[in-house]
């Protein structure tokens, strides 16, 4: 006779209760509440925080972080780590600045200059990501070591090429970086659109699904016919490209490429922090777009807000550390409580 295997479960709790419980223990929901709380807190302590100009600043600072944080999300969900996003941004900004300076000097149309610069940054970023991918998939280095190599080479090259000074000067770029509609500059709008696209790909397409499958159980992914190696290469190359675009972002804001402009060593760690605060697991397979977006938003609001309430900037890293600790503990607690039910 046909067997009927009833998969017994903890009896489904009353739908409303389980829904409420799911929401309250949901990391994204918690982050949203924390974010709202932080904004209100900083605003009450210093009403200047509520000014529209500050909102514009927050958006811009967020834009400098969000692309490398989302790149890191893909890599971490796939079970890896990318320590090179910061230095890749630096080196691509420096290289592209050098390449496009002759165009700037020749008074070529600024839109064309920026387009070429963007492509150059993406290319250098893709090379850096491809280098990491080569070390990982062909030479079997673990991602941590492979991307540490790329980080070190990239940071070094950025200093060598720039000789420690800003490369190029492009006032047209700075001028364009301030243009836009109302509080949202074109620069920010473009980055937000890219961010949205990355979320759509991660959660709604086969590409995103394979990324989760590989990070969750690489053997199962391979057994299911997924081209694991090729997929991992594409993830690291994409991470490099996004880091390159971040390099271009800083070039546009400052009108020059520098080995240190906002993309120093700590950029890697801030990007990873945003992903971890967003609820991802460094063991792979777990992490969401919304989590990283909120994680990056919280980090942006905290580092800007602390300045508004006159906390010395040197303390910011300490606060970031505390945030990571709380997020990680929350995740551990949640996993434990789920296992017990």
């Amino acid at each position: 006779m046909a067997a009927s295997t009833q998969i017994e479960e903890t009896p489904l709790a009353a739908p409303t209760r389980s829904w409420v419980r799911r929401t309250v223990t949901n990391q994204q929901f918690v982050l949203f509440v924390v974010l709202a709380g932080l904004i209100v807190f900083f605003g009450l302590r210093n009403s200047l925080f509520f000014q529209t100009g500050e909102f514009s600043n927050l958006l811009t600072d967020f834009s400098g972080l969000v692309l490398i944080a989302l790149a890191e999300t893909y890599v971490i969900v796939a079970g890896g780590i990318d320590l090179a996003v910061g230095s890749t941004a630096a080196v691509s900004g420096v290289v592209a600045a050098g390449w496009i300076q002759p165009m700037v000097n020749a008074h070529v149309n600024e839109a064309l200059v920026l387009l070429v610069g963007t492509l150059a940054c993406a290319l250098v970023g893709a090379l850096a990501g491809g280098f990491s991918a080569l070390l990982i998939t062909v030479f079997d280095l673990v991602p941590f070591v492979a991307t540490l190599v790329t980080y070190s080479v990239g940071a070094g090259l950025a200093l060598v090429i720039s000789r420690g000074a800003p490369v190029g000067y492009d006032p047209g770029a700075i001028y364009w970086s301030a243009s836009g509609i109302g509080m949202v500059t074109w620069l920010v709008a473009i980055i937000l659109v890219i961010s949205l696209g990355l979320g759509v790909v991660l959660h709604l397409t086969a590409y995103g699904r394979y990324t989760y499958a590989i990070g969750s159980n690489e053997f199962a992914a391979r057994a299911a016919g997924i081209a694991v190696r090729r997929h991992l290469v594409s993830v690291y190359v994409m991470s490099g490209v996004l880091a390159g675009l971040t390099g271009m972002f800083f070039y546009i804001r400052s009108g020059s490429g520098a080995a240190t402009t906002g993309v120093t060593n700590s950029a890697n760690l801030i990007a990873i922090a945003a992903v971890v605060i967003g609820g991802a697991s460094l063991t792979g397979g777990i992490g969401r777009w919304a989590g990283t977006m909120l994680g990056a938003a919280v980090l942006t609001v905290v580092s800007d807000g602390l300045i508004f309430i006159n906390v010395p900037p040197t303390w910011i890293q300490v606060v970031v550390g505390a945030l990571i600790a709380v997020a990680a503990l929350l995740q551990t607690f949640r996993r434990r409580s789920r296992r017990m039910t």
Partner: protein
Amino acid sequence: MTTTETRAPVLELRHINLHYGSVEALHDVSFSAYAGEVIGLVGDNGAGKSSLIKTVSGVNTPDSGEIIVDGERRHWRSPHDSMMAGIETLYQDSGLAPDLTIGSNIFLGRERRRRGLLGRLGFLDQRAMEREALTQLSRVGITIPETNRTVSELSGGQRQAVAIGRAIAWAKHVIILDEPTNHLGARQSAEVLKVITSARDHGLCVLFISHTLPHVLEVTDRIIVLRLGRVVRDAPTSSFTVESLLAAITGLSE
């Protein structure tokens, strides 16, 4: 299953030889398997069970011999080839991605795309997958309240049932189960054995590898005993007892 012998076998191995360097893993292994039949593959550690299933599933390439699936001679270049030919293999503890939902796991590597342009861009039809997964699983007697929960939320027996359900859903001819009741308690094992019976009822051939001889005797129609890379017994399950099976495995019966 006495009538099956008159039909064409769905899987046939002819004179398979396999070496790992100088080590002889399989020696002149031949057998036929029929639709609607559960075959137990038993043997001591190193008897060649793993080598044999890896040869059938395309992980290993035999040095000589033929693999015939549904009347057609086949060469596997990768495990993917055997999947495409209708053979699904469930390796020990490997089957599922724990962080994906049940539905996503059932369709892993065979995702349903949305219609039209969105589908061509790689957009998934998640709702259809969850719905079809539910149908596929219930077809083999596995009922799950909802498929949109992750596999990590299931118990060991439930995971194994889902993994086998996945294999049944996609296999056209043969499913290979490597120690599917390992690490499972008595009740969870019983669930898994029921699903195996259900696979047979759906006309599939099941190759069941297990060290747990009572499970083998309970669920199989025929048992093939391997020792030192050779087939030493191939007989209906009814002709074995635990003792005689053990004797055949260890070589005491000769």
